[in-house]
């Protein structure tokens, strides 16, 4: 097969100064490039029963999964489009989406076997390099399917499973059938139903009892086609006393028309297990990012969502944790950055369903150039969950008069003996703060960046170092030109 030509030049080797210059380039240059399309299969736009059956057939799925998909499609079609959240949601055109695009035969275990044009994209995004340096395993999804997957041999020997969800279903059907859609059933909401009908790719992670995966597992999701829909499905099961940190990142080319990303992520932390799930969402600003993420934590288990939303046109995402066992702990750290034309409707949900459970939600949003950041959260303490403790803090930073911040907290308490706190602040980068820094010789733009970095620091310090650096670079990139 001839190697197709990409529309972008190869990544040159850069000096440090040149690299710093690149940081300040715009998104289109850094992430917004796209490759020529050389696909094995690209479904025509639109959703139909035939397409759902075809996806299932392509993947040679068992009958129960095919029936699951078709039932989910019925749920999707029967449910109205939600009217809450954002007015932008009404613009999603489900008929103008490619629901399935296959770029490669299978998920390869060597970068050398990945099709050249796709590999070049991931090289440019720095994924193979990151794998070599600091990861336990990597999955790379291009359009609908995972094109590369690898996990360290020593983890495999300990029984850790980290593979794409399609392979997970093929190779570990019993495990998948036992847990799949138990945390987020297809009829949970319209978008979860859509994902359940057309899901493709995503990660399947299984960590056996007592195994600690010391370095993070990472998945990288890339959309290339215009009007693409990406519907990955991720299921992470951490057996008792185990630990895993899963990190995901995502980017897409900048197009004038819209794409849709609608994932479903289910986490199951068995007694005493700990799962940390970090997202650095940096879709281009033509992507609707409508995602359902939910976790269960049994006795003494901990689940942490670290959720950074920088990109997309509209994000609606509220990672949730059901604390089902005594002394379980849940934590959501969320940063949202809303620039021109963006609405980040992010938040968190924590349900205390057992005694002596604890949780924290720290949410921060930054809005500039007319962007809108919303915090939408739920904190629920069920009857009988005595001794529950929770703290919710949401802070918003407005960088100009045109931007907007909203907070929609819901708190339901069904028990007397609880300790629940909620704090919300909205502030703007004040002239006095800027004046103070500028009086120490710091230029205005630099001063503004410093204030923003200080604002998000409590969350970026929770990221692995490599991601914290990337996060700060991305924020700097977003901040370019915000003064004057």
């Amino acid at each position, binding site marked *: 097969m001839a190697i197709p030509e990409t529309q972008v030049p190869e990544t040159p080797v850069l000096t440090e100064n040149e690299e710093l210059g690149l940081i300040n380039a715009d998104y289109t240059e850094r992430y917004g490039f796209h490759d020529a399309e050389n696909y094995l299969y690209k479904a025509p736009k639109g959703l139909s029963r035939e397409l759902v059956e075809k996806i299932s057939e392509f993947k040679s799925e068992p009958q129960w999964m095919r029936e699951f998909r078709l039932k989910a499609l019925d749920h999707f079609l029967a449910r109205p489009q939600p009217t809450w959240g954002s007015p932008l949601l009404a613009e999603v055109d489900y008929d103008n989406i490619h629901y399935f695009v296959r770029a490669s035969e299978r998920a390869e275990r060597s970068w050398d076997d990945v099709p050249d044009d796709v590999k070049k994209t991931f090289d440019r995004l720095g994924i193979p390099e990151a794998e070599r340096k600091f990861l336990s395993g990597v999955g790379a999804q291009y359009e609908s399917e995972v094109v590369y997957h690898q996990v360290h041999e020593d983890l495999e020997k300990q029984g850790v499973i980290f593979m794409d969800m399609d392979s997970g279903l093929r190779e570990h059907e019993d495990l998948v059938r036992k847990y799949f859609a138990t945390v987020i*059933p297809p009829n949970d909401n319209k978008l979860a139903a859509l994902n359940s009908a057309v899901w493709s790719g995503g990660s399947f992670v299984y960590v056996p009892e007592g195994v600690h995966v010391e370095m993070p597992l990472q998945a990288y999701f890339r959309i290339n086609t215009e009007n693409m829909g990406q519907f990955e499905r991720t299921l992470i099961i951490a057996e008792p006393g185990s630990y895993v940190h899963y990190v995901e990142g995502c980017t897409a080319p900048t197009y004038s028309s819209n794409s849709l990303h609608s994932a479903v992520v289910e986490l199951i932390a068995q007694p005493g297990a700990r799962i940390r799930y970090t997202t650095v969402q940096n879709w281009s600003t033509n992507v609707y990012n409508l995602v359902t993420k939910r976790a269960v934590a049994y006795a003494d288990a901990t689940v942490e969502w670290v959720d950074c939303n920088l990109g997309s046109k509209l994000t609606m995402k509220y990672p949730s944790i059901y604390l089902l066992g005594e002394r379980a702990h849940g934590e959501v750290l969320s940063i949202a950055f809303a620039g021109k034309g963006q609405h980040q409707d992010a938040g968190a949900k924590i349900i205390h369903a057992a005694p002596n459970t604890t949780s924290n939600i720290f949410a921060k949003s930054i809005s500039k150039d007319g962007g809108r950041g919303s915090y939408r959260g739920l904190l629920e303490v069920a009857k009988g969950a005595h001794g529950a403790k929770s703290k919710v803090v949401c802070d918003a930073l407005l960088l100009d008069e045109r931007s907007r911040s909203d907070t929609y907290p819901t708190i339901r308490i069904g028990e007397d003996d609880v300790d629940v706190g909620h704090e919300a602040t909205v502030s703007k980068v004040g002239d006095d703060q800027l004046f103070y820094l500028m009086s120490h010789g710091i230029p205005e733009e630099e001063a503004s960046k410093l204030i923003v970095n200080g604002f998000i620091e409590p969350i970026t310090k929770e990221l692995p170092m490599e991601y914290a650096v990337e996060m700060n670079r991305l924020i700097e990139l977003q901040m370019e030109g915000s003064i004057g």
Partner: protein
Amino acid sequence: MILRRNPINPLGLRKQLPQVIEICPVEQLKPGEMRLVEWEDLEIGVFNCAGTVYAIEDRCSHDNGTLVEGELDQDSCTIECPRHGSRFDLKTGNPLTLPAYVPVDTFDVIIEDDKIKLEVE
């Protein structure tokens, strides 16, 4: 089809606990069928799951939706809430999938004289 019945209180007494109420002849609830029974302030779903009759509170503990309009799976003996998809075990009332996490009440079923009866409190 869901048959709605008036509250049955054969003894004409209130608040005598527990109490046995008659639902219907066995042949009127075939395998795979279910019906709603209202008694005082209770709404009870009665299900024939592959020949065995079960009764649970007809209220999804997630957002109070009715369960008897959901899908009965006779293999797993579960009912799926039509609103958000939580599946309840008909034998125990336990939710097997989120978003519901609180069990619903179950009721003892008595088959006597070819009639389905429930023990309620």
